[in-house]
């Protein structure tokens, strides 16, 4: 979190903690086999090794193994020092000054310094067909004051800049790798180095023996197998042919009941959100209609029935207890009667009918919502569009008035709020805005005091629950990282992917 005062003391403590923290479970220290490799199954590996061209999704998990980011993340998804040891802003969030480490070298021999950081950021901002341009659009200038000082100036105040740099925009890659054309083999400063890969099938990484945080890597290498089907991944770990993987809400209960498997839940990376567009369905422009529709959704029931209990109602843009969640905000009640009354008052007592799009993953949730709304006289036709069809229909082609899609929470609730509730955002296709909410969000972008910022978020959450705008959270679906009992050291990182620094394989005693 950003504070006006330097965070050196905390940073040092964090580094020491990270380095020394091989994070064994509370049991007696287990001996780790330094030559063991860990095998992981994943939904996808990497299609583009240039973070500036990568499409996101599950892929950054592997980008992170090869590349370090300027700012790191702790298990609770809060920013901590990484390649940047501290960062400050003196002008309320417009300019940030980052102090960089001076002992880091890329695996191709290039020294990492502020000039490199400038080059990389410029690359992300200008590369043709780049995917980070939108995210970095608020950056005005990037300069290297000296070897270890990086200064970034933004166009408007935005205190979430350091958080942005915990993800792809902050990944430092060797300029040599993109100098001659598209990145073929990744060169980074990270805990692992790229060895080999077979597109859509497998990826092999070895330990980076020269890593600047040597104790962080406890395995000799990582072998990734791509398995798109969650059932296949689950079966693979059951049979022991892989050591760790990510599973979904469907399988968490089963996984808990299996002996010999460890598990930790990730709660905030897969929300199901409804997006609306009143331009295509005028009824949705009426705040009473919006509130009524929200009141008719049995969020608790969906968490229980559809997600088998591995989920929770989406009352805010963060799950309960997470950074950004506000205590004491009234959730929208589940009240079909009240919803029906509201609809009548709004003039839709005879009912309403719409086309509702979704992706195959969320067909069940869509059907549950369909049944909920049928009870208040709202008939929706659910259209399951494969691939990215639902998103395209809602956000780009704008042919769908309403739909359900995935939301990974973004790295910071401020970023999420901006993307969903400010005017002219892609994820707010109907431009549904409220002046008060807009003002609060813009204020929060410039608020450097964390507590004050939280207070603003609380106000926003309250307003959103009294008068829903263009995006409505339905449920948070949990995911879980599952691992065999050979594996030690997993920290419950809420970032949404298995973080393999600090993880090792127990020395053979099988």
């Amino acid at each position: 979190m950003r504070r006006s005062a330097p965070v050196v003391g905390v940073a040092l403590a964090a580094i020491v903690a990270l380095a020394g923290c091989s994070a064994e479970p509370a049991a007696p220290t287990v001996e780790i086999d330094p030559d063991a490799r860990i095998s992981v199954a994943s939904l996808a590996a990497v299609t583009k090794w240039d973070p500036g061209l990568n499409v996101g999704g599950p892929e950054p998990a592997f980008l992170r193994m090869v590349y370090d980011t300027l700012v790191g993340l702790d298990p609770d998804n809060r920013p901590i020092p990484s390649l940047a040891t501290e960062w400050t802003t003196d002008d309320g969030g417009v300019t940030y000054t980052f102090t960089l480490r001076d002992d880091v070298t890329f695996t191709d021999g290039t020294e990492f310094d502020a000039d490199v950081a400038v080059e990389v950021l410029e690359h992300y901002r200008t590369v043709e067909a780049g995917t980070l341009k939108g995210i970095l659009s608020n950056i005005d200038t990037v300069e290297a004051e000296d070897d270890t000082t990086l200064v970034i100036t933004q166009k408007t105040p935005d205190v979430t800049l350091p958080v942005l740099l915990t993800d792809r925009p902050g990944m430092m890659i060797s300029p040599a790798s993109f100098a001659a054309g598209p990145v073929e083999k990744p060169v980074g400063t990270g805990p692992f180095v790229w060895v080999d890969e077979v597109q859509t099938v497998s990826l092999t990484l070895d330990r980076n023996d020269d890593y600047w945080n040597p104790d962080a890597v406890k395995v000799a290498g990582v072998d990734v197998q791509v398995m798109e089907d969650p059932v296949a991944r689950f079966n693979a770990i059951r049979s022991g042919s892989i050591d760790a993987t990510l599973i979904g809400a469907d399988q968490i209960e089963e996984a808990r009941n299996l002996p010999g498997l460890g598990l930790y839940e990730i709660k905030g990376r897969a929300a199901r959100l409804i997006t609306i567009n009143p331009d295509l369905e005028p009824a949705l422009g009426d705040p009473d209609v919006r509130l009524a529709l929200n009141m008719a959704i049995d969020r608790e029931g969906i968490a229980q029935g559809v997600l088998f209990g591995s989920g929770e109602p989406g009352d805010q843009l963060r799950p309960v207890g997470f950074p950004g969640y506000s205590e004491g905000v009234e959730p929208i009640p589940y009240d079909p009667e009240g919803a029906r009354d509201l609809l009548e008052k709004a003039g839709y007592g005879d009912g309403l009918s719409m086309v509702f799009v979704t992706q195959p993953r969320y067909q069940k949730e869509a059907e549950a919502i369909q049944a909920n709304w049928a009870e208040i006289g709202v008939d929706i036709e659910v259209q399951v569009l494969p691939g990215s069809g639902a998103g395209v229909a809602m956000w780009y082609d704008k042919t769908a008035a309403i739909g359900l899609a995935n939301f990974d929470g973004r790295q910071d609730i401020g970023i999420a709020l901006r993307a969903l509730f400010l005017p002219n955002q892609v994820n707010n296709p109907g431009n549904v805005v409220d002046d008060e909410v807009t003002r609060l969000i813009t204020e929060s972008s410039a608020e450097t005091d964390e507590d004050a910022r939280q207070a603003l978020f609380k106000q926003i959450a309250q307003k959103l629950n009294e008068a829903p705008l263009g995006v409505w959270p339905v449920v948070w679906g949990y995911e879980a990282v599952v691992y065999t009992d050979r594996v030690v050291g997993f920290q419950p990182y809420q970032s949404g992917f298995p973080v393999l620094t600090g993880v090792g394989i127990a020395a053979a005693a099988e």
Partner: protein
Amino acid sequence: MFSVLLPRLARTVPVFLLVTVCVFGLTSLLPGDPAAALAGENPTPEQVEEIRRQLGLDRPLWEQYVVWMGKLFQGDLGVSLYNGQPVAQAILGRLPVTLSLALVAMIFTIVVGLLGGILAAARRGGPVDKVTTVLSTIGIATPNFWIGLLLIILFSFTLGWLPAVGYVPPTQGLWPWLSHILLPGIALGAAGAAELLRQTRSSMIDTLGQDYIRTGRAQGLGSAAIFWRRALRNASLPLVTVAAFQLAMLLGGVVIIEKIFSLPGLGSLVIDSVFQKDLPVIQGVVLVNALIVLVLNLITDFVYTLLNPKVRSS
């Protein structure tokens, strides 16, 4: 013979061209915009446009078609929109899986179909015949993916003998490979086996009653030798037909099986590309498949002509 085949060959060329037009036309009509999906989070319309230009998607359709055909004739199937992997490489990478599946399915079809059909014909009217007939009738009626699901429930969940998902290449051991490919192969080959059994049986029954078997016996050949020699010769016709038909239908039939058993083969490649509108991959795979089908048809006709004297003379 060639008077029969030459017109067929001549017809194949326009068919192939029409296939390319269809494939291209259909995939361009698919909904979805790969440029939007590739643009990452929150792109501006300009960024999406930039990507579209880079992928060549902003050129008029007929121009894209010509470019594609040009590359095709140079043996270049293009590159996947999503991961930049050459389509040819993607196909070759997935081919062993689908081929393994086809192989096991084919062996199952032939062995069960032929033996069952011959056995049923030999013991015509008896209990063996009745049972096999019933089984084969059921086998034709059952969706192959249901058979797959049942096999998983029985052999993986209940008995635990075989794994339910995944593919292991034969380089990692013959039994691991077989254990993973056996269930899907059987599911895929069951309908063909049933069909082949029925056709073999009826073809055998026709043959057994014919004169030249009797004359063969008169010439002093042992009845077993006659039986097997004539039997196999007559079974060869339905065998070729069913086998060719199965291979031609392979890509379609294999899609769902690959999904159920999580096999990274051509079927799942094509289904994913259709959903992602990854045009080059769809076009490449479907075209290669069409080519194989057309070639198979030609071969079937050829073999048919060879084996069946009546056709030859007409």
